[in-house]
C-alpha cells in the first residue's frame, strides 16, 4: 500500500513538474469516472484536446483472487473466478473446470460438454450485448443501452432458470455441470434466437449505420497486427487487427470441435474493426447455439468424481476464449486438495496495455471510444 501511494505521488510529481515546463495538461480520468466502467485510473497528459500520453494505474479493485484460490479446494475455487470477468462468468468457470479435469484426467460426458458450450456462447452474446450498449453510451448515445438490455435480460432469464443466478452462476463443476438443464431451456433459447433475429437489424439502424458513429470509429485507434501480437492482445481486439487467435479454433475444448463456425476477422485495426468483430461474433455464437440446441446428447450431465478432489503433482494449463479474449488458467499442484499456486492470464490486462499505444495523438473523445472498443472489465484486469 505504501509503495503504491509512493509511486502514485511520484508519478503525480513528475507529471506536475513536466506540465510546468511544457504547458501540458495532466488530468486524472478515474478511478471514479463514467467512462472507465469501473475503478480504472488513467493519467492523461494532454496538449489541448490531443492526448500525448496515457498511463493506466491499476489496483483499485484488486482482491487477490489468485491468493484466495490457494486456500480453496478444487471444487471451491471455481466460484471465485466468476468474480474476475463477471460478464463471462461461465467461461471463466469453464476454463477452471477444464484445467482441473485435465489434472484429474476425467472424461466429461458428451451432454455436459454440449451444455457447457451452449452456456458459454450465451454468455458471450450477453457480454457483447452489454458491451454494445455501453460502447454506444460512451459515445453519447443512451438509447442503445436499453435496447441491448432487452436482449441481454432474456439471456439472463434463461440463465436464471437453469443455473439459478443471473450473473455469477457457478454452474460449471469439475466433471461437467452442476445441474441438468431446465426442461424449458431449449424452447427458451429458441425463443431468444427468434427475438434476436427480429431485433438485430435495429442495432445497425441505431448505431452501426449511423454516420456520426462511423466517423467517430473509423480510422481512430489503429492497432497493427504486429503490435497486437507483441502487446499480447487477444480476442476481438486482436482479431480486429487481423491477428487470428481464436482459442476455440486453435485449441478446441469441450464440444467446440464438433461445431462449425467462422473465426471473425477484420483487418482494419481501428475502433470500427473491433466493433464489427464483436457484432459479427454475436452472429457466430447464434450459429453455434443453433447447431447444438436440438442436438444435446442424452446421458449424464456430470462425470462421477470423488468427493474430495486431489490433483496429481504437476503443472496444468488450460486456455479458453472468453468474450474478451484468451483466458489462461495455470495450476501448480503439490498433490494436495488445494492448488499450490494459481495464475490467471486475463485477457483484459494485455488488452488494456495497448491503450497508451493506440491513443497517442487522438482526442479525448477518441480515447473514450477506444476504451469502449477494448471492452475492459476492470475486475478482470485487477483480479
Amino acid at each position, binding site marked *: 500500500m505504501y509503495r503504491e501511494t509512493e509511486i502514485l505521488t511520484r508519478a503525480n510529481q513528475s507529471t506536475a513538474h513536466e506540465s510546468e515546463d511544457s504547458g501540458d495538461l495532466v*488530468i486524472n480520468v478515474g478511478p471514479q*469516472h463514467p467512462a472507465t466502467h469501473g475503478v480504472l485510473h488513467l493519467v492523461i497528459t494532454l496538449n489541448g*484536446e490531443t492526448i500525448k500520453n496515457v498511463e493506466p494505474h491499476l489496483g483499485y479493485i484488486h482482491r487477490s483472487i489468485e491468493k484466495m484460490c490457494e486456500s480453496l479446494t478444487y471444487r471451491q475455487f471455481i466460484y471465485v473466478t466468476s468474480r474476475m470477468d463477471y460478464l463471462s462468468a461461465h467461461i471463466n468457470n469453464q476454463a477452471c473446470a477444464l484445467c482441473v479435469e485435465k489434472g484429474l484426467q476425467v472424461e466429461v460426458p458428451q451432454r455436459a460438454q454440449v451444455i457447457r458450450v451452449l452456456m458459454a456462447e450465451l454468455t458471450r452474446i450477453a457480454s457483447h450485448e452489454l458491451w454494445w450498449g455501453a460502447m454506444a453510451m460512451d459515445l453519447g*448515445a443512451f438509447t442503445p443501452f436499453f435496447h441491448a438490455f432487452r436482449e441481454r435480460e432474456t439471456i439472463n432469464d434463461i440463465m436464471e432458470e437453469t443455473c439459478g443466478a443471473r450473473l455469477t452462476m457457478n454452474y460449471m463443476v469439475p466433471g461437467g455441470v452442476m445441474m441438468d438443464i431446465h426442461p424449458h431451456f431449449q424452447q427458451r433459447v429458441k425463443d431468444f434466437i427468434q427475438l434476436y433475429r427480429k431485433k438485430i437489424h435495429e442495432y445497425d439502424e441505431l448505431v452501426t449505420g449511423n454516420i456520426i458513429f462511423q*466517423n467517430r470509429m473509423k480510422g481512430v485507434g489503429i492497432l497493427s497486427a504486429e503490435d497486437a501480437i507483441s502487446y499480447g492482445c487477444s480476442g476481438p481486439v486482436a482479431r480486429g487487427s487481423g491477428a487470428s487467435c481464436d482459442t476455440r479454433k486453435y485449441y478446441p475444448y469441450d464440444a467446440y470441435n464438433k461445431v462449425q463456425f467462422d473465426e471473425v476477422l477484420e483487418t482494419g485495426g481501428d475502433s470500427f474493426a473491433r466493433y464489427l468483430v464483436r457484432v459479427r461474433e454475436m452472429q457466430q455464437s447464434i450459429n453455434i447455439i443453433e447447431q447444438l440446441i436440438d442436438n444435446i446428447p442424452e446421458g449424464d450431465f456430470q462425470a462421477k468424481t470423488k468427493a474430495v478432489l486431489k490433483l496429481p503433482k504437476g503443472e496444468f494449463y488450460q486456455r479458453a476464449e472468453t468474450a474478451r479474449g484468451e483466458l489462461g488458467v495455470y495450476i501448480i499442484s503439490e498433490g494436495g486438495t488445494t492448488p499450490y499456486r494459481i495464475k490467471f492470464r486475463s485477457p483484459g490486462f494485455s488488452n488494456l496495455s495497448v491503450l497508451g499505444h493506440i491513443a497517442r495523438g487522438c482526442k479525448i473523445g477518441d480515447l473514450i471510444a477506444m476504451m469502449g472498443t477494448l471492452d475492459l472489465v476492470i475486475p478482470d484486469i485487477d483480479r
Partner: protein
Amino acid sequence: MWSFSNIANLVHEVLAEHFNPAITLAIEMVIAGVSVIGLFAILGLVLVIMERKVSAWMQIRLGPNRVGPKGMLQSLADTLKLIVKEGMTPNGADKLLFNLAPFIAMIVAMLLMAPIAFAKDLQMWDLNIGILYVSALSSVTVISILMAGWSSNNKFSLLGAMRSGAQIVSYELSAGLSALAIVVLTGSLQISEIITSQANGWWIFKGHIPAIIAFVTFIIAVTAETNRAPFDLAEAESELTAGFHTEYSGMKFALFFLAEYVNVFIMCSIAATLFFGGWMPLHIGNWHKFNHVMDFIPSSIWFFGKTFFLIFVIMWFRWTFPRLRIDQLLDLEWKYLLPITMFNLLLVTAVAILGWHF
C-alpha cells in the same frame, strides 16, 4: 374575442385610473417581470418532465411514474431536492465568477424572452431589430459557460468551457445566416412583421427548397448553440464527467439546467416564428373558409404547439444520436453548414428578387 391584448388593455386602464403614469408603468413592468419568471419556472418544470418521458419512451422504459399522476409532478420534486441541497464552492475556485456564472446564464435566457411573440398581441418588446437582438444575445451565454469553466478550478470544467467557446462561436454563424434567409424574404428584422408576412402561408411552404434548407441548418445550428446532444461537448458526461458544471451543485446547478432548457425553448420558438409563422394559424393562400376555420384555434395554442413540436425534434436528436468529436463538430460547421447556408442565402436572395415565392 378573448385575447391577451384585451386583458392587457383592461389591466392598463384599471391601473391608469388609480395611479399616475410613472407608477402605472412601474407596476406594469413588475407584472411583466413576474410573469417572465413564472414562465421560466413553469417551462423548466414542463420541459424536464417532457425530456424524461420522451427519453423513457424511446428507450422502452416507463420513465418517472411515482410523484403525482403518471409521474407528472416529478420535476417539482426534483426542484425541491435541488433547492434543499447544499450549493458548494470548491476550494481554490474564483468565488465571484463561480457564483455569478449561473445567474448570467439565467439572465441571458430571460432577456431573450423579451421579443418573442407568445400569442397574438402578446409580446413584451416588439423591437425593430428582433432577430438581430436574439442572435446577439444568445451568444452571451458562452460567457457564463466560460466563467463557470474557468472559475471552477477543475480541468474537466475548463476543457468543457473551451469546447463550448469554440462551438458556440462557430455555430452562431450558420444560425444567423439561416435566420437571414427568412429576413431576406420578409424584408424585416422585426418579429411581428415576420409573423404578419406569413398570414397567407408559412415561410417553410412559401419559400420553396431554400426555406427548407434554411430550416434544417437552423435547427442543427440551434441544437449546437444550446449545447444539446449530439453537440453536447461542453458537458459530454462520458468524457468530461459533466463538463463546465462539474463542480456545481444544488440551486446553482439547477440554474444552469434551467437556462439550458429555456434556451432550447427560446431557440425553438424563434425557429417556429421564422419558419412556421409563430402564433399565425395555418393559412393557405386564399382558401378563406379553411383559413377561417384555422383561426378558431387560439393563437397561443398554435405558438406553443409549434414550439413544443420543435423541442420534441431536438429531444429526439438527443436520444438517438451519438456525440460528435470536437474536430468533427467544427468540420461540420465550417465545411458543411457554413457553405450551405451561404449558398442558400444567395438562392433565397434570388428567389426574393425574382419574386418566386408565393
